[in-house]
């Protein structure tokens, strides 16, 4: 039990996917202008990660490794993730319209979110088993959502303050991300 708790703390705070592993910068900077948008994006990322990681895990260990094709990992994973995202989008549109209307617009953006492919590859390199991989994907998604919501909350405040013109927008967001990353580094003492 304890190791699962430590894995959660590690993935959410210490090795935060955005602030320590530098993954998913495009949505992190692009979808962090409003809190509502950031919550939707964060939820969609968690959703797709929880689906994509076990599926790519199964493909790696049940298809690619037995056939000796593991050098095709990258190309298989990205195609599976792209297809999966399209399927999820079509499924939600038909089956769960309310969920689609809140998450749907974020789904197409996720295929090229390197955090999703990144997690799928990281769990292979760490040789996690299927359960741990799925749990790690969930924890990583949670860390992404936390970082996104925090940055969006700060940027909403920043909109109404006076900034030098050259710092407005992405430069200010990056410097803020640096400060947040510094504070997240302080959690390293916990594990």
């Amino acid at each position, binding site marked *: 039990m304890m190791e699962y708790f430590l894995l959660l703390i590690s993935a959410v705070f210490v090795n935060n996917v955005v602030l320590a592993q*530098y993954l998913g910068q495009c949505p992190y900077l692009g979808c962090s202008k409003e809190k509502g948008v950031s919550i939707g994006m964060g939820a969609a990322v968690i959703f797709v990660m929880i689906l994509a990681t076990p599926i790519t895990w199964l493909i790696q260990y049940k298809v690619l490794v037995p056939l000796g094709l593991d050098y095709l990992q990258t190309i298989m994973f990205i195609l599976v993730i792209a297809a999966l995202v399209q399927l999820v989008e079509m499924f939600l549109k038909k089956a769960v319209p309310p969920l689609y209307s809140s998450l749907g617009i974020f789904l197409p953006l996720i295929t090229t979110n390197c955090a999703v492919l990144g997690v799928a*590859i990281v769990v292979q390199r760490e040789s996690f088993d299927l359960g741990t991989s799925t749990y790690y994907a969930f924890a990583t998604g949670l860390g992404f959502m936390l970082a996104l919501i925090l940055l969006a909350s700060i940027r909403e405040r920043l909109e109404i303050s006076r900034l030098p013109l050259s710092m407005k927008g992405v430069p200010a967001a*990056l410097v803020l991300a640096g400060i947040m990353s510094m504070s997240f580094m302080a959690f390293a003492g916990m594990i």
Partner: protein
Amino acid sequence: MASMWKEFSKGLWAEIPPFRLMLGLCPTLAVTKSANNGLGMGLAVIFVLALSNAVISLIRNIIPKKVRIACYIAIAASLVVAVELLMQAYTYPLYQQLGIFVPLIVVNCIILGRAEAFAGKNPVHLSIADGLGMGIGFTMSLTFLGALREVLGYGTLFGHGLFGPDFHPVHFMVEAPGAFVSLGLILAGMNLLSIRKALRRGENPADNPMPGCESCRGCAMGRD
């Protein structure tokens, strides 16, 4: 020839990918702990980008419009697998240093962004020029940021000591926060230059704000 030079040279300064177009920020932040890593990553991206632009431009009239992004991803992924295998064979230490960011070149917005914005619409020779220019611009940016962080954070440049034993390195620069803050300040500097230029021409600098991540067309996937 002149048009090829134009497409090549725009990637070197006017539309330099990470600093002006905001493309490919993840590897820009992640692999620039040293100038060497930045250079290596940049070379891998030049290879993939020039070839993917060439291939996509060659078959741009065959690809159905609806599935074009999926095709672009498949082409880029095949090239990335080739790069991975080449790096494992010839530059294994660098491959290990760059870690998961080698396979992640697939989802680097530069590849999809240039495919969608340029190679899918233009003839082959211009697309190759565009890919080479953008790739070299990306390499220069990564090497510059890597050199800056390495000099301040370790006191070395390409692994050679610069300052002697009395230098106290600023460890902040080679940790994650240093990456974010230094990239943010470089972008602010680029902004400042373009604001100055606009003012000199007598334009209002607020009319031409810096592009956000809109220039990354990967996000437009499935929209039309």
